[in-house]
C-alpha cells in the first residue's frame, strides 16, 4: 500500500470524503503507483458513462428559495455515438442554416467537421475529462466512468 492510498483511507475514516470519492481517487492514483502494470494492461477502455453531478445549497423556484438540491445525471456514451450518427444525416444544404443558428447562440461549431470516425477519438479523450467547479454555494462535477 502506497502513502497516497493510506492518506485516502484516512480521509474516509475521518469522514472528510465519501466512499465513492475515495474509490475514484484510488482509481486515479493507481496508474502512477504501478506504471509497469499499466503498460501491460494497454490503453484505457472507453468510458461508458458521462456523469454530471450538481450540488447546490439553494435552488430558486418561482422566485422562492427552496433549499438544497442534488442533481445526478448519468448519460451513456452510446447515446453520444447515436446522436452524432443522427446529426450526420443532415443534408449539406441545411448545414449553413444550422451553423448560423448555432453562431447566433454563441456556439462556434461547424457541423461539417463532425464525422462518425472522429467520435471514437473524442470518446477516448473523454477518459481524461474531469471538471470540478466550486462556485460559492454550488458544486458541479463532470467526469466519465
Amino acid at each position, binding site marked *: 500500500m502506497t502513502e497516497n492510498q493510506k492518506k485516502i483511507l484516512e480521509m474516509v475514516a475521518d469522514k472528510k470524503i465519501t466512499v465513492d470519492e475515495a474509490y475514484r481517487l484510488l482509481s486515479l492514483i493507481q496508474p502512477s503507483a504501478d506504471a509497469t502494470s499499466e503498460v501491460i494492461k494497454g490503453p484505457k477502455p472507453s468510458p461508458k458513462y458521462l456523469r454530471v453531478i450538481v450540488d447546490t445549497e439553494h435552488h430558486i423556484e418561482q422566485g422562492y428559495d427552496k433549499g438544497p438540491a442534488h442533481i445526478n445525471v*448519468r448519460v*451513456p456514451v452510446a447515446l453520444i455515438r*447515436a446522436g452524432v*450518427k*443522427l446529426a450526420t*444525416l443532415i443534408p449539406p*444544404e441545411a448545414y449553413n442554416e444550422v451553423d448560423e443558428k448555432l453562431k447566433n447562440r454563441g456556439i462556434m461549431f461547424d457541423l461539417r467537421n463532425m464525422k462518425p470516425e472522429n467520435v471514437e477519438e473524442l470518446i477516448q479523450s473523454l477518459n481524461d475529462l474531469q471538471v470540478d467547479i466550486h462556485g460559492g454555494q454550488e458544486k458541479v462535477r463532470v467526469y466519465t466512468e
Partner: protein
Amino acid sequence: MSAAYSVHNEEHNFNIWLPLFLAWLILAALVLAFLPIFLILLIITFFDGWGEFVLLIGPRLYNILCALKGLKVDVDKPNEKVEIMFV
C-alpha cells in the same frame, strides 16, 4: 429494456415502470400505418438532398432509443424527488 419514472413530492407519489417492448409494438403499428405516406415522402424528397435523411431517420431514432439504456436522471430536492431511468 425498460423505463422507470418516479416522482415523490407533497402532492404526488407516482411510480411507473414501462417495459419498452410495449412501446416498440406501438411504434411498429404506427410505422405500418404511416408506411404509404412515408414512401410518398421518400419519393418527393429523394432528389433534393433530404432523401437519405427521410430513409434513415427511423433506424437512427431506433438506434438512439436503444442507446438510452443506462441513462439515469436523479433530482433530489427537500420536498421532491424525481428519478428517470432506462435499464
